[in-house]
Each structure stands twice: as C-alpha cells, then as structure tokens.
C-alpha cells in the first residue's frame, strides 16, 4: 500500500488541531459569555 504524502498527513493533523481549538473556544464562550 502506498504511503500517504507528508502533505496529507500534515493536513489531517492541522485540521484536527483547528477543529479542537474551535471547539474549545466554543466551550469557553458557551460557559462564560452567556
């Protein structure tokens, strides 16, 4: 099976971090800014 390129691996990691960051920011707003 061919190895996925570094770009694809980095892409998945980067997007995961962004989604996690947005979720945390959303949680921060939901808990404290209401």
């Amino acid at each position, binding site marked *: 099976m061919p190895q996925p390129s570094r770009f694809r691996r980095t892409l998945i990691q980067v997007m995961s971090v962004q989604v996690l960051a947005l979720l945390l920011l959303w949680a921060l707003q939901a808990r404290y*800014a209401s």
Partner: protein
Amino acid sequence: MHWINWVILVSYIVYVVWDGLRRTKGTVNIEGYFLANRNLPWWAVGLSVMATQLSAVTLIGTTGQGATDGMRFVQFYFGLPLAMVILGVTLVPFLHGAKVYTAYEYLERRFDAKTRSLTSFLFLMSRGMSAGTIIAAPAVVFSAVFGWDLTWSVALIGVPTVLYTVLGGVQAVTWADVKQMVVIVSALAAIVVVLLMRMPVPLDDALRVAGATGRLVVFDFSFDVTKTYTFWSGVLGGTFLMLSYFGTDQSQVQRYLTARSVDEARSSLLMSAYWKIPLQALVLLVGVLVYLFYLFQAPPLLYNPAHEAQVRSSAPVEYAAMEQRYVAAGVEREAAARNVVSAREAGDGAAETRALDGFRAAEASVTAVRTEALDRAASVTGQSSRDVNYIIPRFVLDHLPIGLAGIFLAAVLAAAMSSIAAELNSLSTATVVDFYQRWVKPDGSDAHLLAVSKISTAIWGAFACVVATYAATLGSLIEVVNRFGSFFYGSILGVFLLAMMPRARPLGAFVGLIVGMLTVAAVSFGVPSVSFLWHNVIGAVTVVVVGILLSGPKQD
C-alpha cells in the same frame, strides 16, 4: 529594570547575531543567500513562517487588545487554515515547480515583464514602509517605558536584525526564527502561569466575571459588513487576505521556496497554520487574564508612562482628582467582582445575576474615568494615545518576577526581529531579482549579484530604520501607504488566480490588476464603512472577471 533582565536581553541579542554570522558559511551565490539552496527542512520553514507573522505588535498590541476588547479578534484568523490548504494544492506547486526566486518572476513567464514589474514594485512600496512600522511599533513602546530616545530604541531592534540578515541571508533568518518561536511561546506560557498563580479568586469564577464584560465572546455570526471581526469576515474575507498574503507576498512566498520539494513546501505552509488559531487565542487570553489581574490590583489610569507624565504636569490638580475617582471606581469594581464570586460559591443564581449587573455598572464607571483620561492624553500630547499597547509592558515590568521580564522583552525583540528580517530579505530579493538582474545586469556573476544583494539588504534595513525613527512624524504618511497597500492585496491575488487559468492573457492580467485596484480604492473611499477584510474579496474577484473578459474567448 533589574540588571538580570538586562543581562538576559543583551545575551539574547548577542546570541542571535553570533548565530547569524555563523551561518554565513557556504553562502556563495544568490540561490544560497535568498533560498538557502532550496534545502531547508520543512518544519524549520514552517516555524519560520509562523515567527514572521508573530510580530512584536502581536505580543504587545494583541495582548492589550485582549485586555480591553476580549477574544473576538481571533476570528480574523479563521480563514488561515483554509487558505493554507488552497495554496498547498494550487499556487505552491506552481511557484516551487517553476524554480523562481520571486513570486513575481513567475508572472513574467506566464504573462509579461510589465505585469511582473508592476506587482513587484507594488510589493516593494508597501513592504518597504511596513518594515519601518514593524520596527517603530515596539521601539515607540520601549522608548516610552524606559524613557529612551526613540533613535536608541530603533537601533536596539534594527541594528542586530540588519546585521544578521545582511550577513547570513535566508539561512540566518530561518534558523533565528526557529529559536525566536521557542522564546516567544515560552515567554507567553510563563506569563500565563504567573497570572494563574497570582489570581486571588478561582479561575472559573474570574472567567465568569470576564464573560460578563463580553470579553469571552469569540464567535459573532452576524453578517454585518461594517463590523471588522465577525465569523464571516474571518472565514471569507480572512481566507482571501491570507491567500493573498501567503500566496503572493514575497516575504512569505520566499520562505516556502526554500523547502526541498513541493511536498515539503506545502507541509511547511500547513505547519505554519498548525498553531495559528490556538496561539492567537492564547495571546488574547493572556490579555483577558491581565484584565482580570487588574480587577484585584489597582491599575494605572494611563499605562503609557510618557503620556501619564505629560498629562500630570499639564494639569496636576485635575489629574490627581481624576486618579482619585479612578481608584474609588476600581475599589467598587473589585468589591462587585468579589460579590459575583461569593454568589457563585453560594450557588445562589439570583444573587449571581444581581452581582453581575452590579459588576457591569461598576465596570462602566471605571471605563468612563479611563476614557476621560485617554481623551485628556490625546489633547495634551496631540497624539493618538494607543494606550492599549502599554498594558502588557507595564504589567511585565511592574509585576513579573526578575528574569521573566527579561525573557518577555527578549520575546518582544525576537518577534520584531523575525518579522523585520523576513521583510528585509524579501525586499532585497525582489529588488535584485525583479529589477537589478532583470533590467540592469542580466549577466552579472554570482559573486557580483551576491554583493549587490547584501548591499540591497543593508540599504532596505537603513531605510526601515529611518522610517521607524520618523514614525511619529510620518504617522499620516504611513497610514496612507498602508491604506494604499490594502487596495492592491486582493488585486495581486487576482492576477495569480488568472495565471492559473489557461484562458487568461497578458493584457487581461495587466488591465485587470489596475481595474481591481481602482475598484477597491472606489469602495474604500465611497463606502468607508465596509470592513477592510472585504476589500480583498472585491479586488480578487474584479481582477479575475475583468481579466477573463479582456482575454477573449477560450482558445483551443
């Protein structure tokens, strides 16, 4: 400032310059000087891109913005990861594969020499000035906080940076950036730890108090083009801005041209997006925590010591009275904040709501006195107070333990140096490759072009320092240049988008670029309420539409 802080600061500067000098070895031609022989590891390039964007303004201004306005600014970066992915699959393979030195060089291959020269010239104009402002922003703060002459502050930041950039080229710039990222992130993390340790109430309660002031509103989904920071302006306008900045601005393009392959270039770009949103959120959160810190600790009425001294000497009795009112309002606000905490700990929802209302009223009283003081400072000094930029430096010098203040100041210097170094290196590249080599000496030897490149870097460095020294008097001129810069950012992106469309022709690209800039200028002056983030969308779309229309029917 304590001598240990000075030792840390000076040691850091000496180390960065020494390391830059060390990396001059092996740089024998302009490919080595400007592109590190296209042989840098992707993670170093990624960190370098990240460091370049994290300017001193981010550390000083954005933290201050977090303290006064809260977290909403983070929405500005929502388009960045998206832009990096789009660039990774579109422009990066084009530019890296074309083996160019500058992004604009590619435009000559695709269109013609005049489109290349115009875009490169626009880059030089806007970036030349902005290099000055990048030095000026921290220099002005340093000179106000330490009472130095502005020229000395500019020299402290500018001279070491110019030295290692001139001598070491992009190798020195990139490896210095890697270290600078480490210093910046460590300093921020240390400040967070100190703030958390010194918070007199539980963090959960403190954040609830900050939330009551609106500082923890992160997402604003209103589709209002007059608001600068909304979810939509960040995702749509921000994406176009980031596409334009990372795809067409030589200071960024040059970073990923140094990578070993297209795959590594794309990865480095993505790597720089990795921590952008979390890091910006952290920077803003530091500001929010500093705001909370000053709820329980008497804050200065004016954070800028130079302005404070001027206002105080111009009307001592009035200023003292204002300070007294400020202290009284601050004491009431602290009591109101503690009421919120007590109500939460008692688990009394109704009492908490009443306490929060009381806190908001007390906060409004504090803000009213501070606004009065800021207005007074503006009228006495004749300058916009920009007091927000002094919140963090004052906090650092007044409240951080010995050693940590030195590390923070080193981080501010590091942030300024990394941004300026990248600008100088890219300004020199565009000057030498797009103008000197293209129009003056196409057959220049490697040694000759390398010497010209070093001279060009030094000249741009001197120019940036001069602009920075006169930043206060050039204020309106710099504003005009920055505004002019926003006219063509989106338009240049439009030209690069056209370059990837087989149908586009040189005439369409050149005329499209000019029409795009004029359209954005018309919108900017005609409908000034439209947020600048939307200018990038308008410019890019106009250039593509005009370019395609002028390029005629599709040719087989």
